[in-house]
């Protein structure tokens, strides 16, 4: 059999397997019959309407031009142009199967193109990976996401580390130069800057007497009010900030929320709900590289009269004082001394330079020769000079071996020694001259590219150095550590028990938090949360902290499943979730009494549980004014089944708002065309039900029974959350739907393994990988698809070592 036919058959066989919730893809005969019945009469040898022949169009999808022509075929059919209206029309179901087949084949072809790799494959690091690597290499905090730092990485279905998409342009190179300069200069300054220390508070209310201690004021932050700017003098060094404060939560109200805002970068550098008794303040501590900030209490709901606000108390002693505030300011405490609003009471703000820890010092030891001094000129004595270059050679070798994550040859290192020589000869002092060489090492492609393969000896698997990088960039988004390097040098890394031991060691290391945060962020496309900011008129309760809390919930949920090694089914359905006080009030759960994320048990009336009914997931598909059930369906299809539905045809009419003289209609009602028009139904019968299951959740994920409709006459209509899946199974709402997903967990498990492999191997999975992915999933089934088991099975599989 030809290779193409094998591929095609494998494709169809694989896609045909399992009890699918989406329609089966048509085998060869169905497609051929369809074309014969509806297409070939006008598009074959006898007649070529539109100068197009379908019978000779190759069924080969890796070639881009051919794939594009097939794409055109799909568009024409989906838009209803083909077959023409006066010709026999296909039924929705058969049209759907053929469109599915073409679309899936196009996707597979694209995947094959994207994953195509020659003898050597180069995968560029993403911004986050660059920053983590810089930290693990030299202990320098470099934020690649600051404006002007590194270029944003393009995403593919949420993943920002797909090798074929991460290209290199002059702009990238320029930024890598500057980034390397920043990192090296911070790690090895010529003079260590004197430590910076500072403090601010609201001053003395009552001086100390012999009988009584000094009483100081506390600064009151009521919701929305901004504190004065704090300027720490730092040259980009990390500063440790400590804030001593209490947080008072009113009965039945929201927790006060401390936001530390960097107003030059317009972003928050610390966020937390604070709930502590008035007389028992806590100290929050965090590190930052910003140089100035101010505090505010980021909760909404404080009355807005500017004159009254200007009278409202900004500092006080305590709530038991007979006169707390100005009589013409807002009342902040009731007559029993209880807070009426979420209030932060700040005692003091302190800051100091972060000292270089022992661990960081160890990373930097041996990188910079200690003699001569940094400001010294080149020695004039030739013997001394030669000895110096020898030392430089050794140091640079050690540094390059670590930075490039492999054994670096003498020839390669010599280029960098020459940089030192040139700089010194030009009159530069030793410090800057040697730093130039270090910067050059970090600006080499060997640093910011992961290289796999050998130009002279093609191979199918990675070698030990490459495997170490694969492991570390998968689990830590960063370079291998000394332990991994040691295993490579000992030649034992590829032994299964060694890999397993390394995996266990690495998942127990604190750096695993990088995986636990990054993988769900990319898999579930959480970057889309807040992309269309919800209209404040329609959603007055939505604020930045709610948005951030939503994303943190999903990450905390994944972290919990990971930490406790729970089965994959918990992603679909559970009786628990992770919430903070802000989310607990949004979900109308019982009020929490302490801040931070905590696990809560859910009751059936809470209508939550699993990933699919989390606010982040429900809101990332909305458009700022309303939910979009079709987009929700597409998301479920991608994230849960790993299947991207075919795109819509061009020029589809947007939904119209309800006319003022017609009864109010829900969005679902307006999507009736999807169910009634054949060309629409062919695809939408498989997409829409996946979104309609969540009709009870509005655009920001809040529970509702009625849909708020602008315009039109009558009351707001009740939502309809039922539906029929293509396999005929029905559901009444989200809970039913989750149950159906759990019953089909095998399918989800395979899709999940594919997502995990995409993340781990940094490339799109192709039809060639399908068998391996299925095997990994099958291997994890006896253990109920526990998350760590899947991880282990992936890491121990052949796929993980396949180039």
């Amino acid at each position: 059999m030809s290779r193409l036919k094998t591929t095609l058959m494998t494709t169809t066989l694989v896609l045909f397997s399992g009890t699918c919730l989406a329609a089966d893809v048509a085998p060869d005969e169905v497609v051929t019959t369809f074309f014969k019945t509806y297409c070939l009469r006008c598009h074959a040898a006898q007649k070529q309407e539109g100068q197009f022949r379908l019978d000779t169009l190759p069924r080969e999808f890796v070639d881009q031009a051919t794939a594009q022509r097939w794409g055109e075929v799909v568009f024409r059919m989906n838009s209803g142009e083909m077959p023409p209206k006066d010709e026999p029309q296909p039924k929705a179901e058969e049209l759907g199967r053929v469109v599915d087949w073409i679309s899936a084949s196009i996707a597979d072809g694209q995947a094959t193109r994207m994953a195509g790799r020659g003898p050597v494959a180069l995968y560029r690091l993403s911004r986050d990976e660059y920053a983590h690597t810089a930290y693990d290499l030299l202990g320098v905090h470099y934020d690649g996401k600051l404006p002007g730092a590194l270029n944003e990485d393009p995403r593919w279905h949420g993943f920002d580390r797909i090798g074929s998409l991460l290209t290199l342009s002059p702009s990238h190179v320029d930024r890598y130069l500057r980034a390397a300069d920043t990192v090296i200069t911070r790690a090895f300054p010529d003079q260590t800057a004197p430590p910076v220390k500072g403090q601010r508070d609201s001053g003395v209310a009552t001086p100390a007497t012999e009988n009584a201690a000094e009483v100081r004021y506390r600064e009151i932050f009521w919701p929305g009010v901004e504190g004065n700017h704090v300027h720490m003098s730092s040259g980009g060094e990390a500063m440790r900030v400590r804030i001593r404060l209490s947080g008072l939560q009113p009965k039945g109200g929201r927790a006060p929320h401390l936001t530390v805002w960097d107003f030059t970068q317009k972003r928050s550098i610390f966020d937390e709900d604070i709930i502590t008794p008035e007389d028992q303040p806590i100290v929050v501590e965090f590190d930052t590289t910003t140089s100035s900030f101010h505090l505010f209490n980021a909760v909404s709901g404080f009355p807005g009269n500017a004159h009254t606000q200007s009278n409202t108390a900004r500092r006080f002693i305590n709530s038991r004082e007979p006169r707390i505030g100005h009589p013409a300011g807002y009342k902040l405490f009731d007559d029993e001394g209880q807070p009426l609003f979420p209030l932060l009471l700040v005692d003091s703000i302190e800051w100091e330079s972060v000292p270089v820890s022992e661990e960081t010092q160890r990373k930097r030891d041996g990188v910079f020769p200690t003699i001569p001094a940094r400001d010294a000129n080149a020695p004039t004595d030739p013997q001394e000079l030669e000895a110096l270059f020898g030392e430089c050679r050794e140091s640079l070798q050690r540094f390059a071996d670590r930075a490039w994550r492999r054994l670096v040859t003498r020839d390669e290192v010599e280029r960098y020694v020459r940089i030192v020589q040139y700089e010194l000869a030009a009159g530069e002092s030793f410090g800057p001259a040697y730093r130039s060489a270090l910067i050059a090492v970090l600006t080499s492609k060997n640093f910011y590219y992961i290289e796999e393969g050998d130009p002279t000896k093609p191979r199918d698997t990675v070698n030990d150095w490459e495997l170490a990088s694969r492991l570390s960039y998968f689990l830590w988004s960063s370079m291998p550590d000394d332990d991994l390097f040691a295993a490579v040098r000992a030649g034992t890394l590829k032994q299964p028990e060694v890999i397993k031991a390394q995996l266990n060691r690495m998942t127990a290391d604190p750096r695993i938090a990088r995986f636990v945060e990054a993988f769900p962020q990319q898999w579930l496309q959480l970057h889309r949360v807040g992309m269309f900011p919800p209209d404040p008129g329609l959603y007055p309760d939505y604020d930045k902290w709610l948005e951030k809390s939503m994303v943190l919930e999903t990450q905390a949920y994944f972290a919990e499943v990971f930490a406790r090694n729970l089965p994959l089914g918990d992603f679909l359905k559970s009786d628990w979730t992770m919430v903070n006080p802000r989310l607990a009030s949004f979900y109308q759960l019982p009020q929490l009494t302490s801040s931070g994320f905590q696990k809560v048990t859910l009751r059936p009336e809470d209508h939550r549980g699993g990933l699919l009914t989390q606010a982040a997931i429900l809101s990332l598909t909305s458009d700022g004014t309303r939910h979009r059930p079709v987009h929700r369906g597409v998301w479920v299809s991608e994230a849960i089944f790993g299947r991207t539905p075919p795109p819509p045809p061009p020029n589809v009419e947007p939904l119209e708002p309800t006319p003022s003289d017609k009864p109010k209609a829900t969005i679902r009602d307006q999507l009736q065309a999807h169910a009634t028009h054949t060309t629409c139904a062919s695809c939408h019968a498989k997409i829409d039900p996946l979104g309609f299951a969540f009709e009870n959740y509005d655009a920001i994920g809040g529970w509702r029974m009625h849909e708020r409709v602008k315009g039109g006459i009558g009351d707001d209509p009740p939502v309809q959350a039922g539906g029929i899946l293509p396999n005929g199974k029905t559901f009444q709402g989200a809970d039913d739907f989750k149950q159906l997903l759990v019953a089909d967990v095998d399918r989800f498990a395979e899709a999940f393994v594919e997502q995990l492999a995409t993340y781990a191997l940094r490339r799109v999975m192709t039809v060639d990988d399908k068998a391996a992915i299925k095997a990994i999933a099958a291997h994890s089934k006896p253990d109920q698809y526990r998350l760590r088991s899947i991880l282990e099975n992936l890491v121990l599989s052949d796929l993980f070592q396949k180039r």
Partner: protein
Amino acid sequence: MIDNQPTDEIDRRTAISLLAAVVAGGVILSNSSAQATEPLPENDESLQPGKFPAKPGNYLAGELVTTDAINRRGGLRLDGDFNDDRYDKAQPHDFAMLPYGMIYYHGAPAELRDIPLGTHLHGSFYLPPKGEENTIPPTKGPPQYGSKFNHAILLEDDFSFFQRRGQAWEVVEVNREKARMKVATSGKSAGAEFEAEQTFWIDDATRVWMGKSSAVWTELAAGQVVQLNLTWSPEWRNRQFRTSDVWIDEESRAVATERQRQIHVRYQKHHWLAGWVDHVEHLGGSKGIVTITLFGSVDSSLLEEVKSKKAHGNAVAAAEATLRTYWQDHDHKGGSIVEWKTLDKPPAGSSGIQILWQTGELLDGFRPGRIVRLRCYDWPNIKLPPEERLH
């Protein structure tokens, strides 16, 4: 003629009169060397913030010699008691009006600013309320000539004092050469000490009112029933007073009362009605229902107006014990009266009217015991002059 003494007004003020009817220290208005009567028991209980007094106050009378009208404070030269030493050394008795303290002038509610210096006043006084002990500093003169009762619930001129008790004066004789007028009690008696015939100094400086216009004192004749206000005479230590004003007939008295009432009404509409907060019910965030008792120191027409216009909403501003506000036209808050209660026998100081006022923005000054000022929706909303405003 305007009937400015509605029945309930008399009843209300009769209640007050009972307080002031106690004579302390034997002060009498007579030029005879009358002996001091038995002193009645002092009321030296401290007042509680947020509570009207349960017992009557202590009677003091004297001439208004200093006034700090903005802060409702002043000084009285207490009536003479034939004591030369007092004549030489006594300092004015400094006092402050209680927040619910009432002032009457010409038979109508008034402010201190309406009363000319030199007017003889009758009052009812208490010890300072808890927390206000330092409001009035101790007297600089000999303490035996001062009084510890320095917070007044009531001050009224002779016109108001006697008219309210139903007593007037009948002219017995006018001696033009000696410039003296002898009068006797007419109508009800205000008390034993006022029953004797009294002789007052009178001369061309006395203002005499008849009908709607002025007259001269030489037109006074025996048999006329008059009201009069008193002021200083050189023999004040011997309880001798000069007549500052005489109202010869009913019409002139009615005109004077109505003019003062109008002055008062105008003042209240600009400064708003005072009361205090009994209780606040918090409804979450800045919403709440404030229970306010309005003070009884205002003309009843104003209270009627608040009741009849309450459907339009009311503004309330935070104030202090001096009844001064901060920036009431800016920092008041709007709301509506959701309940109107009337007490049967209100204590002295209270109007008997308690309202429940609901607002969306509670101020810090809306706390039990604190003073507030309330206006109708269509009363002037103006910035008061700077010396009147608190900062």
